[in-house]
């Protein structure tokens, strides 16, 4: 079943055309890694999927509902799409528990006891159940990013977007975050990740999408794509990053 469907999406910032007709569909439970040089449009594509950027033309459909400013409120959007950022964006004035509970309480108006139970479950899942009362500043970068993942999970989204979630981390902290994502993938969560971690893309993703100059240049199963790139651009990219 197709969960995310992107049809001929264009996006420009002023004169700069960032997305030049993107077509992509992602099935439920699929893990898609988007790779490419910086400036290739991969982060913009991700941000269009939850309307942090509005696309200029084309269609994006998530769970059979068309995305555009008029048709979907932030609340409705948050029921479908979760997102984890490169820079964590935790709320620094709230504890880990409060970070996770805030949106379910405020946006959904759910019962406090119920929300706290869910918060403990998702924190358990990312291995941080003992940090419930800690403040973000007291945690390592890797721990903060895992809290951000838990915070997104607490909204029970249908698809999770991950925007270079390990790029701001010290190398020794990357593993713990990737393991959490791997576990989510194994549970059947639909994931779309923009990433620079090629080994992660190869081992965990069902499909790898290579973006180049605002277009999807090449895509396929990771084993094929990495061992047998078809285009010179992908060849060059792979040899540069590996």
């Amino acid at each position, binding site marked *: 079943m197709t969960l995310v469907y992107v049809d001929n999406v264009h996006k420009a910032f002023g004169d700069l055309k960032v997305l030049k007709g993107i077509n992509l569909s992602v099935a439920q439970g699929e893990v898609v890694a988007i790779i490419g040089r910086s400036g290739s449009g991969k982060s913009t594509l991700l941000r269009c999927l*939850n309307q*942090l950027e509005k696309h200029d033309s084309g269609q994006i459909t998530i769970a059979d509902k068309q995305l555009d400013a008029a048709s979907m*409120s*932030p*609340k*409705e*959007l*948050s*029921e479908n*799409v*979760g*997102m984890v*950022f490169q*820079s964590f*964006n*935790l*709320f*620094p*004035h709230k504890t880990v528990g409060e970070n996770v509970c*805030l*949106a379910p309480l*405020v*946006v*959904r108006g759910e019962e406090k006891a119920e929300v706290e139970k869910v918060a403990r479950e998702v924190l358990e899942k990312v291995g941080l159940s003992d940090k419930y009362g800690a403040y973000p*500043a007291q945690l390592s970068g890797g721990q903060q990013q895992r809290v*951000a993942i838990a*915070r*997104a999970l607490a*909204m029970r989204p249908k698809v999770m977007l991950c925007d270079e979630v390990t790029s701001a981390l010290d190398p020794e902290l990357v593993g713990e975050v990737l393991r959490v994502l791997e576990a989510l993938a194994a549970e059947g969560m639909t994931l779309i990740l923009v990433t620079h971690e090629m080994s992660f893309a190869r081992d965990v993703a069902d499909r790898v999408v290579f973006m180049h100059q605002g277009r999807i240049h090449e895509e396929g199963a990771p084993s094929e794509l990495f061992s047998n790139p078809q285009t010179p651009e992908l060849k060059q990219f792979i040899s540069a990053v590996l």
Partner: protein
Amino acid sequence: MIEFTFWDILRNLLLATRWTIVLSLIAFVGGATVGLLLTFMRLSSNRWLQRLTSLYVDLFQGTPLLMQLFLIFFGAAAMGHPISAWLAASIALTLFTSAFLCDIWRGCLEAVAKGQWHASRVLGMNYFQTMRHVILPQALRLSIPPTVGFSVQVIKGTALASIIGFVELTKAGTMLNNATFEPFTIFALVALLYFALCYPLSCYARYLEKKLYDAGLR
């Protein structure tokens, strides 16, 4: 002529300092109230309200406090409603303070990282929910050091009320000087008393700023 001992001078100055403190408090509390209102007007989505508030801020930041004081004092009289120096000073200082605090607080709201808005949006929060639960609490923390710091400017600003005849610390100084002809002692004492009021606040503001910095919020 009455003879003034050093202690007489100091006692009179200290008594006048009370009015400097009272006027500062009025200006600060009044200014904070009006300033808060202005900050919200500035944040509203209404373009006219936004423009009006920035014009207000620019006018008060771009003209001398002394002129603001004169315009209110003499303006009220020109319109047939003379007001006391006391009231004129309170109004002028309140408006002056509100313009600066509005500017400071707007800066603090803008200083909250953009990512906080994005994260809230993605979690489904609307503008007011984001403001209330995410942005305002953080902006409030950022705003305390510069607000405390600005209170020093308010105290110093009250000295201008002396020019329209309100007897606070500076006016008391000039009056005592006219009676005693000991300008060096008197103005040194006046300066010292202002310093005693302002310096602790300056230090406190710096301490708070450093604490924010150490907490990684700045």
